[in-house]
């Protein structure tokens, strides 16, 4: 019997573990190590953040689901990996630290035959002074929607702001990115439009000034270098699409901005032209930059090999081409296909945890040398597809032997369907429904736009909202492993 250990029970890790458990049956063991007792459908945190959903509606307990699937569950966080074992252990292992009540702080060693790192991002609030609390957590100056608890807190702050407006006090809302190297602009995009929608519903829109601040060099970049999509018979840049929506909803924008400092009611920023400025706010939701979760790695002798296994940003190295090269020489083929670690072939990384070879958006710097560009997004659909491909590979390695063919899922050959909510409501809601193919542009195949315009489209409307709402139920149904779950695509 061999053992697969999956670190992280989020979109990618849950997909890997559940498929692996199904395909391997009781012949082999699947173990999940993840610090939270609950699974969270993160995209719906947006609706929690505006008080339209509760935390309970977007989360569920993992333990019964893993018990049903025959998966061993440790509510713990991985701290380090020993891919060669140690003096006292021939087998590779991970060291975990329990987070479960009653066991919190206890450490344990979990041996593995195969390891999948799907630990997602560390929300690196402290990268921007004042955005974090100095201890790795979110500070008091802004709110976030990155976790369900953050979103609950954000909804309370929003309710307070609405009360103030009802009492006659104008409020300034600042939403966007909290650093020059952030990703996940899509989440902030959804949040700003949901807030705008809530303010209109509450009858206080005229008492609010709403502003977008982001590290994108143009509105609609979304960390993907923007996209050209079919809208109303035209092929248009997402810049026009996004600017149109901001203008329609009367939302100002400040782009090419590195948020350099956050204080109570004020941010300082630097722009791509090198100029510096300040923006005041009453309510701010600024997405933090992402980094790897800080796993360490040691060789058999106990020497630190973290730099061999992980990229400097903390994400795990996989089969990508990490050679530093200028933007003009970036190729679709630089992107990983199997997500296997190049040094230890029994280790894989899936979802946000793998180190991308480079940005997708054009790299930009201010004249002061400050990098101001979005880092590549790895959204839900690619994370799920990668998680499933990795599960397939590991299962084949376990059942067919070391020479089994590895399954491939390159982001340069895969599309993504994104539905960005612009307001909730069964008959009044809207969302931008978009597909992009491929996620990473391939300028050799599509020299103009980098993408196939037959499969890259977008439109805003109530239909998009219905799809987003149905996806909420569908993905939670699937993650709970309810009957037919394997038929629902990632």
């Amino acid at each position, binding site marked *: 019997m061999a053992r697969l250990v999956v670190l992280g029970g989020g979109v990618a890790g849950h997909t890997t573990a559940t498929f692996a458990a199904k395909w391997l049956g009781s012949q082999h063991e699947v173990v999940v190590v993840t610090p939270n007792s609950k699974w969270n459908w993160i995209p719906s945190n947006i609706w929690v953040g505006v008080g339209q959903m509760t935390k309970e509606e977007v989360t569920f307990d993992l333990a019964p689901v893993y018990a049903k699937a025959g998966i061993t569950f440790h509510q713990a966080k991985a701290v380090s990996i020993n891919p060669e074992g140690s003096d006292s252990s021939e087998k590779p292992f991970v060291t975990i630290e329990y987070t479960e009540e009653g066991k919190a702080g206890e450490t344990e060693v979990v041996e593995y035959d195969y390891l999948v790192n799907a630990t997602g991002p560390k929300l690196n609030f402290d990268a921007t002074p004042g955005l974090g609390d100095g201890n790795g957590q979110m500070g008091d100056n802004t709110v976030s929607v990155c976790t369900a608890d953050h979103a609950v807190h954000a909804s309370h702050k929003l309710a307070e702001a609405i009360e103030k407006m009802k009492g006659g006090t104008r409020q300034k809302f600042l939403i966007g990115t909290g650093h020059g190297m952030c990703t996940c602009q899509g989440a902030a995009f959804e949040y700003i439009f949901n807030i705008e929608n809530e303010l209109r519903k509450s009858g206080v829109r005229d008492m609010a000034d709403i502003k977008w601040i982001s590290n994108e060099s143009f509105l609609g970049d979304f960390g993907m270098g923007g996209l050209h999509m079919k809208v109303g018979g035209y092929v248009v840049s997402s810049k*026009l699409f996004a*600017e*149109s929506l*901001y*203008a*329609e909803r*009367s939302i*100002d*924008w400040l782009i090419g901005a590195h948020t350099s400092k956050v204080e109570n009611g004020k941010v300082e920023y630097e722009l791509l032209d090198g100029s510096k400025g300040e923006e005041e706010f009453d309510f701010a939701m600024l997405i933090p930059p992402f980094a790897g979760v800080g796993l360490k790695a040691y060789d058999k002798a106990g020497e630190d090999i973290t730099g061999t296994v992980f990229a400097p940003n903390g994400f795990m190295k996989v089969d990508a081409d990490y050679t530093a090269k200028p933007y003009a020489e970036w190729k679709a083929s630089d992107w990983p296909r199997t997500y296997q670690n190049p040094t230890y072939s029994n280790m894989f990384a899936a979802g946000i945890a793998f180190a991308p070879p480079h940005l997708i958006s054009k790299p930009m710097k201010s004249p002061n040398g400050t990098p101001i560009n979005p880092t590549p997004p790895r959204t839900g*659909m690619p994370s799920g*597809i990668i998680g499933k491909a990795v599960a397939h590979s590991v299962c084949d390695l376990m059942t067919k032997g070391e020479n089994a063919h590895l399954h491939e899922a390159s982001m340069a*050959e*895969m*599309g*993504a*369907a994104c539905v960005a909510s612009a307001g909730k409501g069964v*008959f*009044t809601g*809207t969302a931008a*429904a978009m*597909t992009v*193919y491929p996620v990473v542009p391939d300028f050799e195949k599509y020299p103009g736009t980098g993408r196939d315009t037959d*499969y890259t*489209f977008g*439109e*805003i*409307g*109530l*239909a*998009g909202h*219905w*799809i987003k709402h149905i996806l909420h139920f569908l993905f939670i149904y699937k993650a709970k492993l309810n009957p037919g779950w394997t038929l629902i*695509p*990632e």
Partner: protein
Amino acid sequence: MKEEELNFEKEQFSLTMIPGKFARSMRTCVIWQFIRFVIINVKMIIVVGKSH
């Protein structure tokens, strides 16, 4: 005053396109949106199929 007059008043917005009354109303017109729902779903299923 037409809504677009309000929108284009701000200089930052003046170089983009803004939907008029008809386009806006179609976005929440249930019959039209039901048709779009079917079409978008088909398109998404094709992209999802190409990606697996």
